[in-house]
Each structure stands twice: as structure tokens, then as C-alpha cells.
């Protein structure tokens, strides 16, 4: 009970400190803002894929992998959601990894009350870009493939059975899948959340940083899960809406999907990611200074 209370107190303190850090040091938002802009531009390009002249380049790809249907209004919005998701995964690995490294470096400067030098933070992250890239690739890959594996297993099961644990297929592929994907994302992120701070702050080697991240998760399990899970809850309304694309298109206008995806990018990049990155990095630095790690 004491351990639980102290974990909750730690979490509360970490949230408070990260909130204050973000409020008083807007410079932390710069890497996340850059990612949000890139993600939004990518979303717009994908949105305009069925239009000339982008159709000339993207049309054959969409036609081959998905079908001609998705190059027409309003079916393109159904595919847009998937394309946006895939694009975000790719951008996270290629650019997001570097930008997260820069953000951690900025937070480190703020924690130690040193002046923030964006160029220095950029160069320190760029130096270890390959390691940052690998960490993000592993996290993204694990998330993507466990999601696919879960869908495959469920589809295979329900091709022969009507119910699983007294619940029908519709519920499993709907709210249950949503909840499971959320938990999978939470645990995968928690496993590797300290890897980037360790690479940037402690200048550890890649394998050592990964292993140490697992150890830190074990030591700071409850605070880490809460520091990642609670901000992620902000994204649930977006997930619910993304699961009901067809209904929303029929009920309102198809362009609402674009609005939902844009809102998702803003919430994710400018609220959830900065909060999680700041909270976990500051928690790590605080615990390190207190000699508890």
C-alpha cells in the first residue's frame, strides 16, 4: 500500500513538473511542432492523392495495393485514415526519432537550468541518429505487427466460431480490439520509453540503452505506465471516431474524416507526445539526481 501510494505521489509530482516545464519553456514544443507540420503536410498530400496532378504519381500505387474505388469521392476518406496511419508510422521512424532526441536534449538543458541551444540539441541528436532510428523502428514495428497478428488470429478464430468468451465477432473487432490495441501500444511504449533519454543523456550504446530501459520500467513500473497511459487516454475519442468512419461519412459529410485526422495529429503531436516525453524524461532525471536508479 505504501509502495502504491509513493508511486502515485511520484506520478502526480512528475505530471505537475512536466506541465510546469512545458508551460514555462515553450521551446520544448519546437520539435513536436515540426513533426506536427510534417504530419499535416503529409496528410494533405494523401488527401489530395485522387486529384490531379498528384493522382499521376500516387494513383497507380493506390490502385495496385488497394483498388480504383479509393481514388473516388467519398471512398478516398476511408482509405485516408489508413494511409495517414502508415504515413505517421514512417514519419515517426524517419523524423520523429530525431525530433524526440532533440526534445529530450532540450528537457535535459531545462532540468539542469542550462540555456537551451537548439543547434547543440540538434547536433547531439543527429550524432546518434542511427540509434534513435533503431529504437523508434523497433517500437513502431512491434506495435504494427502485434496489431496485425491480433487481427489475423481473431479473423482465423471467427472464421470457424461465432463467439469467444461469450462475446461475438462484432464486439471483438470493435471495442475489444480498440482496447487491446491501446494496451499493446501502452506496454510497448513503456518498455522502450527510457531508451532515448538514456541514449541522449547518458550517451549509452544502443543495446545497453534498451536493456537499461527494461530495468527502469521494472523499477518505475506504476509511474511509467501512468505517465504514458493517462495522456494516451486523450486520444481515445479520436480512435472511437476513426473506428466509425463509414457512419460518420453517412451522418455528416466525408470531409469530417479529414478534420478528425487533423485533430488527431494536433492532439498527438502537441499534447500527448510532449507530455509523455517531458514527464518520463524529467522523472528519469529526478530519480537519477536522487540516487534512486
Amino acid at each position: 500500500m505504501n509502495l502504491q501510494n509513493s508511486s502515485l505521489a511520484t506520478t502526480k509530482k512528475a505530471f505537475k513538473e512536466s506541465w510546469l516545464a512545458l508551460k514555462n519553456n515553450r521551446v520544448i514544443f519546437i520539435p513536436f511542432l515540426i513533426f506536427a507540420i510534417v504530419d499535416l503536410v503529409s496528410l494533405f498530400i494523401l488527401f489530395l492523392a485522387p486529384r490531379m496532378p498528384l493522382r499521376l504519381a500516387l494513383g497507380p500505387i493506390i490502385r495496385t495495393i488497394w483498388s480504383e474505388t479509393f481514388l473516388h469521392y467519398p471512398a478516398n476518406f476511408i482509405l485516408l485514415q489508413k494511409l495517414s496511419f502508415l504515413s505517421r508510422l514512417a514519419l515517426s521512424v524517419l523524423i520523429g526519432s530525431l525530433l524526440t532526441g532533440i526534445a529530450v536534449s532540450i528537457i535535459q538543458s531545462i532540468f539542469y537550468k542550462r540555456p537551451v541551444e537548439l543547434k547543440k540539441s540538434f547536433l547531439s541528436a543527429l550524432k546518434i541518429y542511427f540509434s534513435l532510428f533503431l529504437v523508434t523502428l523497433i517500437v513502431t514495428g512491434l506495435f504494427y505487427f502485434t496489431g496485425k497478428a491480433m487481427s489475423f488470429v481473431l479473423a482465423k478464430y471467427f472464421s470457424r466460431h461465432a463467439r469467444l468468451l461469450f462475446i461475438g465477432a462484432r464486439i471483438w473487432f470493435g471495442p475489444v480490439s480498440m482496447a487491446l490495441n491501446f494496451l499493446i501500444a501502452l506496454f510497448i511504449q513503456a518498455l522502450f520509453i527510457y531508451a532515448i533519454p538514456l541514449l541522449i543523456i547518458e550517451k549509452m550504446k544502443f543495446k545497453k540503452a534498451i536493456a537499461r530501459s527494461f530495468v527502469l520500467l521494472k523499477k518505475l513500473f506504476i509511474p511509467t505506465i501512468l505517465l504514458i497511459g493517462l495522456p494516451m487516454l486523450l486520444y481515445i475519442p479520436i480512435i472511437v471516431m476513426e473506428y466509425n468512419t463509414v457512419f460518420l461519412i453517412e451522418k455528416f459529410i466525408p470531409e469530417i474524416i479529414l478534420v478528425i485526422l487533423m485533430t488527431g495529429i494536433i492532439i498527438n503531436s502537441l499534447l500527448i507526445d510532449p507530455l509523455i516525453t517531458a514527464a518520463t524524461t524529467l522523472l528519469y532525471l529526478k530519480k537519477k539526481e536522487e540516487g534512486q536508479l
Partner: protein
Amino acid sequence: MKKTLLVLLALIFITGCADDQYAIERRYWFLKKQAEKIFNNPEASPPRELETIVANHYSFIKKYPNNVLSLRANFDIASLYAVKKEFEKARAHLNSMRAQYSANLSINADITTAIGSTYEIEEKWPQALEQYNKVIKEYPLTPTGFSIPVYIAKYYERTYQPDRAIATYHQAIGHYKGLIDKHPGTPVALNAGLMIADCYGSLADWSNAAKTLEGILKDYKDKVNLDALMMNTALLYLGQLKDEFRAKELLHTLVNDYPKSRYSGTAKAILKKLSKPQE
């Protein structure tokens, strides 16, 4: 950086504002949404609403006369009039479409069928039948013309006129046999054969249905992909004719000739089940 962003924004703006096929599809989608107000509740919608929506359809057709969606918009106008029980207006509009689409047999078949449908909704079956027979006579090879003989038979089934339904199915069979004689060895003959089998199936004359399908399998072997037809024929032998031996033969042929077919897995599963000793 600023310059790149400005160029990108300009490109997005230009692309987004172009009046291309996508933009036309978008306009048509909003037209359909307007029309749905009437389709969903024809009695409750005021007459003025119909006028407005029909006028919007005409504007769309005038702006994009050669677009495929204009053809749909034309049929939508007829449907709107029909659902509001203004059948004469619907037929007048459909007849006015003939001038624009005179060169296209398929569209003309659809126009004539739509005129028949308005009579059918009005419960004037003799006039509807006249139009449908016109389609069969003048446009027999169009997709609509091809399926109308069976449509007429199914009408009699729906309206509980079994004798007429049976007679019409036999008429349809005769019609399709005529098409096979006129166009032997062609896709027309293949499709006509499938329609004949369908008619025999509707008549529950399974042996003739099987005979027809076997004929197609023999005549079109190595000419077209017959995996689906082989599977359907095997299931017919199993389900209706209780001829396990012939069903197994067909399934073995399917598995051997089309190993990568999506029916191959099902065929193997059925063969496995059939090979188990019966208790």
C-alpha cells in the same frame, strides 16, 4: 524554408481547387444527399423541394454533359419523379434522354427498362411488360437486355403467379438457346448457358441444370477460368442430385487444374470430408 512552404501551399491550393473528376464526384455526392431527403420520405417532402432538387440535377447535367455521372443524374431525376408518383414526368424525362444517348445501345436499354419500371411501380404490368419485351427484342446483348427475361419470370414468382413464372422461365431458356445458336463459342454463349442453368435451377430441374453446366465446362475448358463454375456444379451434384461420385470427380479436377484457385482449399476440405467413412 519559407519559399518551400509557400510553393507547397500554392500546390495544395491549386490541386484542391481543380475542377477534375474528383470535384465532379464530390458535387454529385452532395446532389445525391439532397435527393435522399425525398427518397427517404417521399410523402413528407414538399413539392417545392422536388423542383429545387431536380433543378440542381439539371444544372449539374448542363455543366458536365459528357460525364458518366450526368447519366446517373438523369436517371436520378426520373427516380425522383417516380418516387413522388409523377410517373408521366418520369417517363417524359426518360424519353428526352434518348436523343442525347442515341448511339449507346446499353444506355437505351436502361432507359427503356426504367420506363418499364415506372409502369411496374404504377401497377400497370401489361405496359411494363411491353417495355421489357422491347428491351429483349431491340437490345438483347446489352447487360440489362440479357437479364430481363429472368427478371420477368421472377416478377411472376414475387406476385404468386407460378404458372406464368414457369412458362416465362421456359421462354427465357428458349431465348438464351437462340442466343447460343447465333453466337456460338463466344462470351455471349457462355453467359447465355449460365443463364439457362440459372433458369433450370429456379425451376428446380436440377438434372437439366447440371447437364447445362457440364456442357459449359466441356465447351470452354482451357478457354476461360472455370474454377468457380466447377465448384458450383460440384455443389449442385452434392446438394441437389446427391451424386457424390460426380461431385468428387469435379472437385479433384478443380484441385488439379486450378491449384492456386481460391476454391482449391474448400474443394480439398469437402473431398476430405467425403472420404471419411460414413457412420
